[in-house]
């Protein structure tokens, strides 16, 4: 069984939880094997070297063995380059992790998703505008999951007109509208925003504002009724800074 051992796989820790006396269950996102759970034996011992390694938002290189539900961590190596997240950046990071954990299927290898996640984490470090990082990640995540919104043609197969307004719904092409209102389950956005999204251009504040509404609508459809804890936390923090 040569295949049951995997070496030197780029990975991120999404979440950890205590397991038995001294071990840790580690939810990881790997480049070539997707998202799954590893057991890190002895990782909770007081002097375990893994304590300073198995941290979220840190680029790691993992080796593990075993197949099936629960695999066993063999080694974890530090790849570095990302300071520990703190403050608002940390809450944003939790939001990324919650999205990946809730939406990416287990054991569904997706190097593209890994690349997206990796880029989002590193952009947060580079002090890029958080809103841009998040919208870019949300849109690309939807595309990667196969739920990319239609951004170039309306429901009558006409090209999107930048100066017009559209009603967008999950799984449907944008529909021309003449009002500013949006019925339940739809987002009212400008053609210009749709065109900008199709080009992944988040320069304009209006694009970011409308994209937030649209992407939230689409993600909520996939996430179901249970709210995202990190989003509630962000709301609490925003309320404090006002």
């Amino acid at each position, binding site marked *: 069984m040569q295949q049951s051992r995997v070496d030197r796989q780029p990975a991120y820790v*999404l*979440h950890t*939880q*205590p397991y*038995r*006396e001294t071990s840790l269950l580690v939810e990881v996102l790997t480049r070539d094997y997707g998202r799954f759970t590893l057991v890190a034996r002895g990782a909770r011992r007081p002097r375990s*070297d893994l*304590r*300073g*390694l198995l*941290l*979220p*938002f*840190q680029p790691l290189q993992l080796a593990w063995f075993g197949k099936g539900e629960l695999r066993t961590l063999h080694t974890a190596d*530090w790849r*570095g380059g990302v*300071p*520990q*997240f*703190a*403050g*608002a950046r*940390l*809450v944003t*990071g*939790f*939001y990324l*992790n*919650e999205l990946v*954990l809730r939406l990416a299927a287990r054991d569904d290898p997706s190097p593209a998703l890994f690349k997206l996640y990796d880029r989002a984490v590193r952009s947060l470090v580079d002090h890029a505008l958080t809103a841009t990082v998040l919208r870019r990640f949300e849109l690309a995540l939807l595309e990667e999951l196969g739920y990319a919104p239609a951004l170039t043609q309306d429901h009558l197969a006409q090209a999107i007109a930048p100066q017009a307004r559209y009603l967008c719904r999950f799984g449907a092409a944008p529909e021309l509208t003449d009002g500013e209102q949006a019925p339940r389950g739809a987002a009212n956005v400008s053609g210009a925003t749709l065109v900008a999204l199709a080009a992944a251009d988040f320069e304009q504040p209006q694009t970011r504002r409308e994209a937030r509404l649209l992407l939230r609508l689409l993600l909520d459809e996939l996430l179901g009724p249970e709210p*995202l*804890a*990190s989003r*509630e*936390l962000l709301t*609490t*923090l925003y309320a*404090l*800074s006002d």
Partner: protein
Amino acid sequence: MKNPPSLDQLIAALKVLPGVGPKSAQRMAFHLLQRDKAGADKLARALDRALLNLRHCERCHTFSETPLCNVCADDKRRQEVLCVVEMPADLLMLEQTRCYDGLYFVLMGRLSPMDGVGPKDIDLERLIARACDGVVAEVIVATNFTAEGEVTAHLIAEMLKAQGLKVTRIARGMPVGGELEYVDPGTLAQAMYERRTLS
């Protein structure tokens, strides 16, 4: 063959402990009943007494038999500094260090967005009320340096700063007596990122 109901109830009761599954619970039950009846009696009484007598300290929220715990009741301690920790075990560890003579607040938990534990699930209102008593001048946030501890620290800091209080965080870096050669890369990297000016 089926177990008698009271044995089954004991096994089920032992399963509430973290990390104890059906097999371990059964082993514990047999041990208590067969090998160590005196110990079982002691355990039952201790549990009974603890449930009856223990409550949370009115000021710091840690476990106490009196309305005020002995730390909060000690008027020789500095009243103007308040140290926030996650669990009573953290308070005990800080007391062992003999480095701090102020007062404490024990959160009895932490935020953990990935487990669905949000701001409403820990008693932050109580902390705000305690910190805003007019005497406290500095709040030291000593939550763990895990992602969960850090996010808890951030929320506490934002809430208390909004109330106009001075908020500090315990430092992180190389362990005392640590040699660079033997420290883990994560710790060393963070010590480098958080380096300070020597004066």
